[in-house]
């Protein structure tokens, strides 16, 4: 979940001498200003179908846990002990980064054995038939077909069911009926058909485009379930797939809207939020208790839950449910312990409830303790990390790591100076300024929040100066005073809204946007605009692009 913390704190002029090329590169980036994420001429997308790339996608641990829960009722989260996913673009579900090493293959094997053993405790629950009445072998054959179809998300080919039937027969002959069935479960859960999303598309390409094919209904059902639930389809989706009823946009949209009302959608969306905002790092941060007496490690999961609950509320329960509300809502979700931490009144117990906030001090997720504490040091705030967060996660402008031969040492905590003053060196140092003017002036706007996100009017006895400025954006440039004003500015920004859709594109489709994806991205952005940047509508829009419903024709070996 975590990213390498490449950024450290300050630069020294001396160490930068001789690194002119590096500095030039950063300055050049600043001067140019960011381009739209993917540019494409509207005329290119106006005709034909442009699905973009769609590599096979391996399940993540989250998806594996959900899939075995929905497949077999096994809620033991067996994938929690799997090796962590390799991460790319800040997400752990990117197709190109997810392979299978021997370690993971062993873990798949052992997990499948444990799952099969647990399933064997109550075959009655899983079998579609009564082996006593029907006969064990006939019932096992039915199980192979029914279980295999749900696990592979499409009917088994004859060779596949024959292979599993043989395995069952061997297990029964050598041991017993239950062992035979367990081996079937093990083989299915280790199959590429279960672990990857494999798509072949319809047998024939679309009219006038020999290289593009529509996905069949089984494949569409799987795309829907993994996008919205991070799991396998439910019975209704499977039924629709079996009828071939997911071939048109309206039917797909209807399913998407139904699925968004299911609690599984909330879990999947929370998974996105946690990764997009880097909240997984909360569990590893430490804070200096001498400087922050209000801190205790037990606050960390509460902070995380606050942000995830807040965003869940905005996306699923708020009337507008849009990006602006995420950034500017004058409320949050807290329990009694968190309310005491923030110094607000309201909740009395451990349950999280909606709490109104002082709109002069707090607005949306940007001013919540989770992000403020993650993007801070153990003993002080960090304007750099806070600015970097806004630049990279909200504006989708990746920043390069600092030049390699820079002397980066954090400023000591100095009781005679504000954090802001100590960090100001970046802006005056020509070597660092190139990149740091992109981050620090944004981060200074957060100086009213200390290293654990509590409001402060004074920093080391000096009044806080939380004036800041944004530069190098398409529509947000200029000075501001405080994070509430910053959030309001970002809430109006088309660039930020596009970035949210771009992050969802990467997460939802499992890969970074490339040239071939330009038309799908344009479709997505247009739909998001048309829906007034409502996030739930964005999820629906992800199911309406060419990239979702079509793919390049698969040519074996090509």
């Amino acid at each position, binding site marked *: 979940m975590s990213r390498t913390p490449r950024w450290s704190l300050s630069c020294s002029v001396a160490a930068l001498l001789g690194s002119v090329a590096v500095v030039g590169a950063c300055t050049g980036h600043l001067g140019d200003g960011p381009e739209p994420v993917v540019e494409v001429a509207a005329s290119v997308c106006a005709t034909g179908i442009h699905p973009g790339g769609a590599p096979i996608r391996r399940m993540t641990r989250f998806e594996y846990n959900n899939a075995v829960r929905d497949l077999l009722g096994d809620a033991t989260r067996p994938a929690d002990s799997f090796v962590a996913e390799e991460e790319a673009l800040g997400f752990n579900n990117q197709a190109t980064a997810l*392979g299978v090493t021997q370690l993971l293959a062993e873990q798949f094997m052992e997990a499948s054995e444990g799952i099969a053993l647990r399933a064997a405790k109550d075959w009655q629950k899983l079998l579609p038939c009564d082996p006593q009445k029907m006969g064990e072998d006939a019932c096992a054959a039915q199980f192979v077909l029914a279980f295999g179809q749900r696990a592979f998300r499409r009917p088994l080919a004859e060779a596949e069911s024959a292979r599993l039937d043989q395995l069952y027969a*061997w297990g029964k002959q050598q041991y017993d009926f239950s062992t035979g069935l367990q081996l079937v479960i093990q083989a299915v859960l280790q199959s*590429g058909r279960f672990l990857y999303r494999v798509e072949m598309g319809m047998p024939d390409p679309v009219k006038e485009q020999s290289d593009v094919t529509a996905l069949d209904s089984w494949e569409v059902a799987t795309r829907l379930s993994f996008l919205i639930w991070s799991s396998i389809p439910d019975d209704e989706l499977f039924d629709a797939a079996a009828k071939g009823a997911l071939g048109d946009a309206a039917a797909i949209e209807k399913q998407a809207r139904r699925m968004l009302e299911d609690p599984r959608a909330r879990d999947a969306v929370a998974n996105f939020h946690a990764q997009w905002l880097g909240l997984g790092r909360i569990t590893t941060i430490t804070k200096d208790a001498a400087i922050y007496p209000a801190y205790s490690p037990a606050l960390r999961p509460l902070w995380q839950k606050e942000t995830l609950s807040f965003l869940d509320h905005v996306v699923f329960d708020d009337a507008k449910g849009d990006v602006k509300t995420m950034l500017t809502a004058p409320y949050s979700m807290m329990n009694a312990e968190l309310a005491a931490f923030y110094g607000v009144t309201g909740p009395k117990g451990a349950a999280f409830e909606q709490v109104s906030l002082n709109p002069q001090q707090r607005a949306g997720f940007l001013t919540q303790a989770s992000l403020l504490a993650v993007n801070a040091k153990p003993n002080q705030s960090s304007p750099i990390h806070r600015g970097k967060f806004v630049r990279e996660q909200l504006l989708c402008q990746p920043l390069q790591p600092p030049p390699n031969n820079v002397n980066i040492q954090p400023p000591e905590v100095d009781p005679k100076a504000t954090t802001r003053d100590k960090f100001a060196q970046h802006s005056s140092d020509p070597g660092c300024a190139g990149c740091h003017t992109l981050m620090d002036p944004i981060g200074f706007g957060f100086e009213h929040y200390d290293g654990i996100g509590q409001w402060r009017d004074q920093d080391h006895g000096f009044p806080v100066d939380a004036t800041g400025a944004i530069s190098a954006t398409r529509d947000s440039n200029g000075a501001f005073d405080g994070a509430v004003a910053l959030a309001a500015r970002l809430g109006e920004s088309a660039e930020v809204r596009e970035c949210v859709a771009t992050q969802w594109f990467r997460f939802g489709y499992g890969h970074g946007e490339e040239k071939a994806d330009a038309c799908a991205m344009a479709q997505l952005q247009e739909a998001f605009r048309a829906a007034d940047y409502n996030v739930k509508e964005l999820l629906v829009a992800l199911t309406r692009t060419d990239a979702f419903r079509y793919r390049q024709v698969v040519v074996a070996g090509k």
Partner: protein
Amino acid sequence: MKKLNRRHFLRGAGGVAIALPFLGAMSETASAAPFPKRFIAFFTGLGQVKSAWAPSGTETSFTLGPVLSPLAKHQSKLLVLSGIDMESAYHGPGDPHQQGIAHSLSGTELEVGNLFPYACDPTAMVGWGGGISVDQRLANQLGQKTKFPSLELGVQVQYTNVSSRFAYKGAAQPVPPEDSPYQLFTRVFGELTGDPAVKQRLRAQRHKVLDAVQDDAKSLALRLGAADKQKLEHHLDAVSSIAARLDAPREIGGVCALPDVGGEIDVYANDNYPAIGKLQMDLLAMSIACDLTRVASLQWTSTQAGKVFTWLGQSETHHSLSHSSLTDEARQSQLVAIGNWHAKQLAYLMDKLASFPEGNGTVLDNTMILWCTDIAQGQSHARRDMPYVLAGGAGGALKMGRYLQYAGDHHNNLLVSILNAMGVPDTTFGNPAYCTGLLPKLLG
């Protein structure tokens, strides 16, 4: 440690316990040595303070400096190598840390890709390492008979990106390390105990299931496009590798005893770095003593992970210290202390391996450890004049106890020399453009 049954072991000459698998292994090793050779890659990041790292003296008569001094008792089993350049790491995409770690064992350029941003070029992104690493090449050759072709161990590596991987099965196939000694214990030693009949049944079932899984994967691969097919084939390779080793010997006895991992502590707490490191070395040494693997790597954290060596009285991250000026004596001396501490860990690992008798010597005599890093020193991020140490005996293939000073020889030559010393007679390794042959004077 619990000693369990010894019935699968023979008594060798002199009463030394010999595990049965070694007898069968003799014909497979290229060397005539009666015991298998083992290889361990030992990685620490961010280079060394060169002046404190380099020995003084001549090839055969030298004194270790402050960094390597903890290894003095093993000096007769060391080859200290200076003056070798990681030339390949000056080519291809990536920033110096990314290049340094990915090239360290592969000698191959990184892939261009859209996965990770890097310093110095705001328009470019980089992918994974571009080729197989030397440990995995050895695993392919020497790892066929053991339960694990290789084991990858980490100490708080934690991160999952190109700056945190040095073992590669091939281009864009990073092999992640296991950071948890507890998970590692279960994986490696979990099956060594228990009812033999139950284990036999499990093996028989696994054979059947994995056969079906492989048949299934093969037929699926045939239908996929090239890139997807390759991904599935890598997966299939992993499954085949497990299937091929199901019957590999794995018994407790002789020097092979179950390691004791004690009560569980937080694997990622900064201050547990030494304790987790020690556990991982105990498990690594025992995996080798039990012949569960012959190839391994031990990666000490990620290059820019922000580890603070508090147990040395330090409060700044290693990465931050490594950027300090060579004239900043206070910080440079802390870097020396970090190097010295890692040398102590290597000495500990050597002690452990030397504690297992094997023939007339010890397991250490038949092991080669390569201590490598990503950059020569932090201040410049140079990848020239790298601080390499070879340790152990490599079964007599190397004449140890020397300090060899090279003048810009490429590190690909070191890597191919390692292969040859391990009995794998490759003539080149990594990108051949940076490999001109064996390092002179290295092989005995």
